[in-house]
């Protein structure tokens, strides 16, 4: 029975797909009478099935060695495309996390999408995402991971573009697709280039190969840099981060998933590729610098946002940057732990904020305030999410960040400083969001703000409880170091940075004496951060401008030169006909003249040799 469950773990992605496809029946154009709700319920049921299946399997596979199932996709001459599934504790745990978060987000969406008719499309896309993420978690082949990443890119396009009658949604979906697509496409190059080198796309084989690989350093660097481009776009790292900001135009329940799990798909592949990436020190340096710049930059930007969803989305970039640093310093375990704790805490934060948006309409932080006494559940959920995200013992991210910091201290101590700064900045920005939403006086938008109804609060409470229990769960599985063996100095540093950030945020934003909205003494800096370092403008004047220029040039080249040449041939023959017809002058004498000229010319040509031979004679005669 148990073994049967393990053997059929590949059904988990299929459950979600079945739910997605059957839910489509309730599209407004198919079943016209009874409304879209069953689509959501079917997906919920299927997700629940998948969650139970993965949980039971997780329990069954605990302490067992990892197993592998392989499907053959296609065999061509010299190429066998296998679809290997790895069934290990980590993979199944990832599936459980994905399906669990999906379950909660789908319950949440039942409440949030109450006044919406697009359930079929919405839940179908959520199902597609669930299936894609579960398949990615199981998939042990770089090639098929890439395939799934691409399908998810298309899914992001469709999901962000759910409410396509809004112009900002359309541009946001466009940017989300293109930005991620560029990263994926650059990633495809090394994926293809890796096959002749390693002879396999299986992650285990790649790791084995990387142990003994003797690559040209330039080749290794190029390979690695290409491979990180995909996750760079997926994880919304600088400079491919604008899409996540614009993807906040999509429906909120999908944002829960995007911010917690979907962005982690890139990080997942990155972690699996870590042995290959470690081949080149340049790639490690690139990972660390991309991650570091993103972590600091995005946490600064998050502080300057006035849109709640965007204030949270930049924190996602920040934490994915930390994952990049972890992978760059070869700390896979810390990266995985950070993904887990970040996913849960971030999902909780977005859920809490979604409840606020749901019945206060505005997302503008400057129009919110004074909700603590009336929205205790949301407020507590936000607090728990905040504490779960920053380094606050004993909650989850503390352990992940501590593990990361310990690893960094041994190799690159200055990164610990960066980690502390990022942690402090995130603590500050989350406290700021908390202070602006829940603290202060009620504004006109928040005067009447009841707590959201049960489908919104139930998953929030469950997730908050799970956030609180996470350290206990991890402790009981002996995945965390015990208190005795703790590196106390490092832990204290992290705690101090959290406390410093939180108390500074509290002092500014929970303090009625402080003038709000807070103005920095130097306005351009505030604008620079608020407008995301003007990334949209930078895109527009660099890449978009040059691509538009080149395409306009090529279009003009095609329209004028290529088309023009062919048209010129036609026009020239027309012109030739039109102008040469005047040779038919109507004068029979002219025709006779033409005949005579023809005879003379022909004769000259035929007897040219004799004229030539006789030329000295003519010369002699002339003298």
């Amino acid at each position, binding site marked *: 029975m148990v073994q049967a469950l393990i053997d059929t773990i590949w059904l988990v992605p299929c459950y979600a797909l079945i739910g997605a496809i059957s839910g489509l029946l309730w599209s407004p154009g198919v079943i016209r009478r009874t409304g879209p709700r069953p689509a959501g319920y079917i997906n919920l049921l299927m997700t629940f099935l998948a969650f139970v299946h993965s949980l039971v399997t997780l329990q069954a596979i605990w302490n067992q060695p990892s197993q592998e199932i392989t499907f053959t996709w296609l065999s061509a001459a010299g190429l066998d495309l296998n679809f290997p599934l790895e069934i290990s504790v980590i993979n199944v745990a990832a599936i459980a996390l994905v399906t669990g978060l999906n379950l909660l987000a789908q319950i949440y969406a039942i409440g949030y999408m109450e006044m919406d008719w697009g359930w079929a499309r919405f839940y179908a896309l959520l199902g597609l995402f669930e299936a894609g993420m579960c398949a990615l978690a199981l998939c042990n082949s770089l090639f098929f991971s890439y395939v799934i990443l691409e399908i998810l890119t298309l899914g992001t396009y469709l999901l962000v573009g759910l409410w396509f009658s809004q112009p900002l949604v359309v541009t946001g979906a466009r940017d989300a697709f293109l930005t991620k697509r560029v990263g994926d496409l650059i990633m495809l190059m090394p994926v293809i280039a890796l096959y002749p080198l390693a002879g396999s796309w299986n992650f285990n084989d790649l790791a084995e190969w990387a142990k003994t690989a003797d690559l040209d350093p330039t080749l290794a660097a190029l390979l690695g840099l290409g491979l990180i481009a995909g996750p760079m776009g997926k994880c919304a790292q600088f400079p491919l981060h604008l899409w996540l900001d614009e993807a906040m135009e999509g429906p909120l329940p999908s944002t829960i998933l995007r911010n917690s799990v979907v962005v982690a798909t890139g990080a997942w592949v990155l972690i699996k590729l870590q042995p290959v990436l470690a081949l080149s020190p340049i790639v490690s340096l690139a990972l660390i610098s991309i991650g570091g710049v993103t972590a600091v930059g995005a946490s600064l930007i998050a502080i300057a946002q006035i849109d709640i969803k965007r204030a949270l989305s930049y924190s996602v970039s920040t934490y994915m940057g930390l994952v990049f640093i972890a992978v760059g310093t070869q700390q896979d375990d810390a990266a995985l732990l950070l993904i887990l704790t970040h996913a849960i805490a971030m999902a909780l934060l977005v859920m809490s904020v979604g409840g606020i948006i749901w019945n206060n309409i505005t997302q503008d932080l400057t129009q919110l305030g004074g909700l603590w006494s009336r929205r205790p559940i949301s407020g507590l959920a936000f607090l728990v999410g905040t504490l779960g995200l920053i380094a606050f013992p004993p909650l989850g991210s503390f352990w992940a960040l501590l593990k990361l910091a310990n690893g960094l201290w041994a190799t690159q101590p200055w990164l610990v400083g960066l980690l502390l700064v990022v942690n402090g900045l995130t603590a500050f920005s989350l406290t700021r969001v908390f202070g602006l939403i829940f603290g202060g006086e009620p504004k006109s938008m928040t005067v009447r703000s009841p707590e959201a109804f049960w489908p919104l609060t139930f998953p929030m409470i469950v997730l908050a409880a799970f956030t609180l229990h996470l350290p206990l769960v991890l402790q009981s599985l002996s995945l965390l170091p015990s208190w005795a063996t703790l590196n106390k100095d490092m832990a204290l540093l992290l705690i101090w940075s959290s406390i410093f950030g939180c108390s500074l945020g509290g002092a500014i934003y929970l303090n009625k004496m402080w003038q709000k909205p807070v103005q920095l003494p130097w306005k351009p800096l505030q604008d620079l951060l608020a407008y995301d370092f003007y990334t949209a403008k930078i895109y527009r004047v660099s890449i978009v401008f040059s691509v538009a220029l080149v395409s306009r040039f090529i279009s003009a080249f095609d329209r004028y030169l290529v088309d023009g040449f062919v048209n010129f041939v036609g026009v020239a023959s027309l012109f030739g006909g039109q102008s040469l017809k*005047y040779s*038919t002058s109507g004068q029979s004498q002219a025709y006779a003249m033409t005949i005579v000229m023809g005879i003379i010319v022909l004769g000259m040509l035929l007897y040219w040799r004799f004229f030539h031979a006789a030329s000295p004679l003519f010369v002699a005669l002339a003298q």
Partner: protein
Amino acid sequence: MHLELQYFLLLAAALFCIGIYGLITSRNAVRVLMSIELLLNSVNLNLMAFSNFLDPQEIKGQVFSVFVITVAAAEAAVGLAIVLSIYRNRETVDMEQFNLLKW
């Protein structure tokens, strides 16, 4: 000076060229017919010369020129009739006025 075949041929060629020149440049249609007569006469001259120098026994060239003269007379008659009928319609014999059949 001894008469040779070449001289006759050269004279006939010169006559032919003059005829061609007249054929192409004349504006009067009758003069064009006259030029054609020049051409035919130069041909006759050739035929007579060849017959005299190369075929004095059977003198086939002379027979040919009799035919040419005959046909030339007929052709001139038809030509003049055509000119006359054009003149009746157009009231001119200027060749440059007869350019209706152009492009």
